[in-house]
């Protein structure tokens, strides 16, 4: 066990006072040497199995160091992972504070070594000793103490016989290589199928919502079918019969939505029963007016002038959208 003390940086002497400071430093050293000797207690090395070690084996060691409370090991003084000797590697170092006992703290160093000694017979080898520096954690203090971890023995064992039987080709002594591990496409493939199934299910839900083929004849999507038909008819919007067919398609959509025939005077009752279409009261009113003019009026062409084909298409599309939005629960309040 050794101890030493150095000057705190804030008390570093100016050039003019070097001689006096040297004397002062010497006296500080004398004063702190005695308590520092007691700063490090017992150092114990424990290893669960320091024998029967083969070439390439990893083995653990635990070093327990008793140090006065307030002293902590300096990270820079711990042994560095890497090759220690030509036959020994240090794999990892970890340090942890233990319980406090009689003013001393038990510091535990966990070390993992790996031996590369190619033994011909069972052989005793010494793990190299090392020193750990403990420094006081108190503010402004620069007292430090060194804990000597002694070297300790391990027993290494040979992997094979001293004199192997003779072979024609010396490469026959070598162990062959195992095949290259393959990549496993299984998880990615399973995930791809799962995504594909999810996509198809989502597509089915979307088709049901939009009343796409083959779910286009559902009564809950009467306006979707009507909007589709109106869009088809809009291709020949100059045609008088196309306009009338489009009006009829919307009538059919209204009838199928309500489950009964809806005439112009039934509109308020229809809107009360189906509040999802409340926002479309005005276009629906104009639709009934145009329908009356087109089918029963004196001048069918006047209906087209008052409510042109693009308005009809837009109304059909809005009805289909309101149908989709208000489909579950029908909770939308009439505004």
């Amino acid at each position: 066990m050794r101890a030493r003390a150095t000057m705190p940086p804030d008390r570093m002497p100016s050039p003019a006072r070097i001689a006096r400071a040297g004397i002062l430093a010497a006296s500080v050293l004398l004063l702190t040497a005695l308590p520092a000797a007691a700063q490090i207690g017992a150092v114990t090395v424990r290893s669960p199995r320091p024998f029967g070690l083969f070439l390439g084996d990893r083995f653990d060691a635990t070093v327990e160091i008793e140090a006065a409370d307030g002293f902590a090991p300096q990270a820079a003084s711990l042994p560095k992972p890497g090759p220690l000797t030509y036959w020994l590697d240090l794999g990892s170092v970890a340090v942890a504070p233990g319980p406090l006992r009689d003013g001393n703290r038990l510091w535990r160093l966990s070390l993992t070594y790996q031996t590369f000694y190619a033994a011909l017979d069972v052989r005793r080898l010494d793990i190299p000793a090392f020193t750990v520096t403990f420094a006081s954690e108190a503010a402004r203090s620069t007292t430090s103490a060194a804990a000597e971890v002694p070297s300790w023995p391990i027993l290494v064992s040979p992997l094979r016989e001293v004199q192997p039987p003779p072979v024609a080709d010396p490469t026959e002594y070598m162990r062959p290589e195992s095949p290259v591990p393959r990549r496993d496409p299984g998880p990615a493939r399973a995930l791809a199928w799962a995504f594909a199934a999810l996509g198809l299910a989502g597509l089915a839900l979307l088709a049901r919502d939009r009343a796409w083929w083959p779910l286009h004849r559902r009564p809950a999507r009467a306006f979707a079918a009507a909007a589709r038909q109106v869009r088809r008819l809009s291709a020949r919007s100059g045609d008088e019969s196309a306009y009338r067919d489009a009006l009829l398609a919307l009538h059919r959509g209204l009838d199928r939505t309500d489950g009964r025939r809806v005439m112009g005077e039934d509109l308020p009752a229809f809107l009360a029963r189906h509040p999802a279409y409340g926002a479309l009261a005005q276009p629906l009113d104009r639709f009934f007016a145009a329908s009356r003019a087109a089918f029963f009026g004196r001048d069918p062409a006047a209906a087209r002038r008052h409510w042109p084909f693009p308005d009809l298409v837009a109304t059909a599309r809005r009805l289909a959208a309101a149908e989709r939005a208000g489909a579950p629960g029908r909770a939308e309040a009439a505004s």
Partner: protein
Amino acid sequence: MRTRIKPVAAHSIAALWRRARGPVRSGLLVALPLAAAAGAIVCAGLAWRDARANRAIAALEAGTDRAVGAEAPPELLLARIRFLAARERFEEAEPLLAALDRTGSADLRGRAQVSLANARLRQAFAKLEAGQLDPAAPLVGLARQAYRRALTLRPEAWDARFNLDVASRLVRDLPERGRERGEEMPADPKKIWTDIPGQPRGLP
């Protein structure tokens, strides 16, 4: 009057939700199949890449050369490194080794080191068989360094341990002359002894 403000706020949130529900719902319904299709395409691409890598690995193991880029899957890099090492084309294997060190697991990196070490050891055996002791010793040293790296990465590689033992008996480390500390030094060609039964051919 807090008791009156609260229901109004809750009501407005509910009204907001009622207005937003339709667009949110239809947006989700469109987004779900699109996202799932994208995921399916990506995963199918990954599975296809794995299957293709496996075919290339099988070809390399069968002795057919395949060009392998540095961005290839680690297993394919290992197969190509092994292919090159077995044919003593170590310079070509260097960039692949660097790539494997970046992307591969410790297990695969250890296997690559074993392949290099085995190739070096086979070279050394060939030199010993030809009676060329001096060039054999550095090859054994290279093999031992690679085995040591392999065992650091993969201590469970018992075949590598066995082969390291074989290599170590060809060229012994001698612990004197200040070799107690520090990295393994290159083996001294004068200090060679071998456990090959009988003298290598070509020697008296």
